[in-house]
């Protein structure tokens, strides 16, 4: 009975909102629509509609996948500073972080699906029904840890929200172990994803032990950067109580993470350039171009500039503790790491190919449209999550026996 009331009220809440909310949703739905139409074309004609070839056989899809796994991992890792520094709204941050992680994982899985040639054969990868080559294939590991992470990050916020809806305290013995488990698991998903590339002797650019640590360092930057922006939007639109000090603390941690990221990159650059073996070639292609091919050079240098600028912004207290510069820094990191951990990581793995051939890859309109569609879908479901989760957390949306005015909840201040 209460479930039915909950459902009815949820539906109403999702469908009722401010003008900005409607515009935002319409905008996302339009992009999703375009993405679906391009994906339909890809399903019909095959992956030939992309710019991928036998030389560069992974591209924008797998780049986005890698980046989003990092975002998903880092969203949960935000829980650590929330505990250590006793941020006021810990429960809110846990719920927000885990819902952000869940959205990012869903996007990441959709990117794998978009890259898959035969999604019609998905049953083959389901254990028991199909054959999952565990533990031999790192991709099998990734399927397991990512789906497990998704489940974990769905259970915790749903549980906390339901308890809050019933005006009951979450049972700590149940929820704390799950939250604590999700922290090493977050490290796990990004490590496994790094090992996916790392374990290939055929690709010297990836076959460096520094890859997994670098993945984690850059994820510690990009994930919190997205969270910083989202926290501020929610603070403005929903009255989520989060202090500036908490934001500045996160920014400070990001500066350290970015320092480690840049340091590890420097270590890698030194080793490759100073030894100067033939394995330098992919890195040279990325940073300088080889034999007149330099499609990625402007991208990686913009990423470098953005990452270094953001590092300085977050390092210097004056700019870190100013919301305007803080947001500029966050945007720079989001974009900079996206380039570095997206195309900047995937494409040089394939250039030159194992027989020395150079194929210059940049994504085409089809790949861009499908990718934007997936991003829009992720933002859309995150918006929906927030639309329901925030009123519950604020206490506006509770069990009908507590709420006399249940039929008229307040929506006005709710935005993504």
């Amino acid at each position, binding site marked *: 009975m209460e479930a039915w009331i909950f459902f009815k009220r949820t539906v109403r809440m999702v469908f009722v909102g401010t003008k900005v909310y409607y515009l935002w949703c319409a905008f996302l739905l339009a992009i999703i629509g375009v993405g679906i139409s391009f994906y339909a074309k890809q*399903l019909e*004609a*095959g*992956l*030939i509609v992309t710019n*991928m*070839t*036998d030389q560069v*056989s*992974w591209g924008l899809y797998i780049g986005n996948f890698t980046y989003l796994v990092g975002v998903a991992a880092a969203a949960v890792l935000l829980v650590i500073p929330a505990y250590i520094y006793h941020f006021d709204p810990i429960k809110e941050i846990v719920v927000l972080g885990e819902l952000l992680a869940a959205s990012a994982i*869903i996007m990441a*899985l*959709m990117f*794998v*699906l978009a*890259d*898959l*040639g*035969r*999604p*019609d*054969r*998905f049953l*083959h*990868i389901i254990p028991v029904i*199909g*054959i*999952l*080559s565990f533990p*031999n*294939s*790192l*991709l*099998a590991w990734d*399927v397991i840890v990512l*789906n497990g992470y*998704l489940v974990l990050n769905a259970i915790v916020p749903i549980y906390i929200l339901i308890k809050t809806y019933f005006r009951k305290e979450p049972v700590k013995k149940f929820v704390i172990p799950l939250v604590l488990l999700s922290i090493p698991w977050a490290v796990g998903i990004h490590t496994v994803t790094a090992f*996916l*590339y790392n*374990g*290939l*002797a*055929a*690709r010297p650019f990836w076959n460096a032990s520094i890859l997994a640590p670098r993945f984690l360092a850059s994820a510690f930057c990009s994930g919190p950067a997205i969270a910083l922006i989202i926290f501020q939007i929610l603070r403005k639109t929903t009255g989520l109580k989060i202090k500036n000090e908490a934001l500045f603390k996160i920014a400070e941690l990001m500066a350290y993470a970015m320092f480690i990221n840049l340091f590890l990159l420097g270590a890698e650059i030194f080793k490759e350039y100073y030894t100067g073996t*033939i394995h330098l*070639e992919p890195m040279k292609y990325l940073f300088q171009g080889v034999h007149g091919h330099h499609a990625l050079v402007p991208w990686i240098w913009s990423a470098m500039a953005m990452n270094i600028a953001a590092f300085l912004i977050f390092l210097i207290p004056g700019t870190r503790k100013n919301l305007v510069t803080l947001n500029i820094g966050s945007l720079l990191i989001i974009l900079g790491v996206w380039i570095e951990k997206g195309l900047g990581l995937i494409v040089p*793995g*394939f250039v*030159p*190919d*194992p*027989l*020395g*051939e150079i194929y210059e890859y940049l994504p085409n309109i089809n790949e861009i449209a499908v990718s934007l569609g997936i991003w829009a879908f992720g933002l859309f479901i995150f918006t929906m999550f927030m639309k329901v989760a925030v009123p519950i957390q604020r206490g506006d949306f509770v069990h009908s026996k507590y709420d006399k005015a249940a039929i008229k909840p307040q929506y006005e201040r709710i935005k993504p």
Partner: protein
Amino acid sequence: MKMMSMGTVAALYLGSSACTKDKVEEFLQKNFREMSETEKKQVIRRLEETYLRKYGKKFQISTKRAEAGILWGYGLDLSRCIGCRRCVYACVKENNQSRVNPQLQWIRVVRLKKGSLINLENAEHYYNPETVPEPGFMYMPVQCQHCENPPCVRVCPIKATWKEPDGIVVVDYNWCIGCRYCIAACPYKGRVFNWSEPNIPVEELNTDVHYLGNRPRMKNVVEKCTFCVQRVRNGRYPACVEACPTGTRKFGNLLDPNSEIRYLIENKRVFRLKEDLNTEPKFYYFFSA
């Protein structure tokens, strides 16, 4: 969520392409290595009917197993190769590779400047002179090296590719999900992908095929050299060996002490490509002169 979206996709896919009985059977088909003999027979019958409908040609699809006591090995004499690429085209014809969009080839012949053999960074893939050989250059054909320790097989998340008892690395085209992890893992560029529905002129189709070898493929699956499994398991040489005008290519049973390949390994100075990666190829390059 993933399951749901995948399910929707599958439903859409099956729905749009005339959901016939064959489609359903194909959808539910097992991995080749898990099929019983009866299931194999059913699958072969269905495939032969499908090919007949699609191409108007009667196919003979073999599922012949590896024979005991055989481990296939390949020898390639770099001092004889003139870079004519006859092997490439013989292979394409024998093995029903897509001709255009995408143009797939299982053998890649690279041109190397004399004095630079191991550094493939300077390999030329699209050399196109009036006549070959050219002074100052040598040629190195590369194809699947049929590693004893194949990285492509290890990475496949669903065991759609494996090493047969006679050492041939094969793909079940009906099991492959098209993730292309194997392509990323192969150090020899031994695998190519059907980026779209393969395009082969019907009159050029080879109808004498093996299930794990040269039967026509479908879009978005990976494929590779199988040492012409359809030929070598019937006592014939691979098509590339037959097509070579200079006797560059040698083939035989590594377990037979009297085979030509064993003679070459014991008496010539052989090497294997990228031996440092421990993939243990069964493809031996050598110089006879």
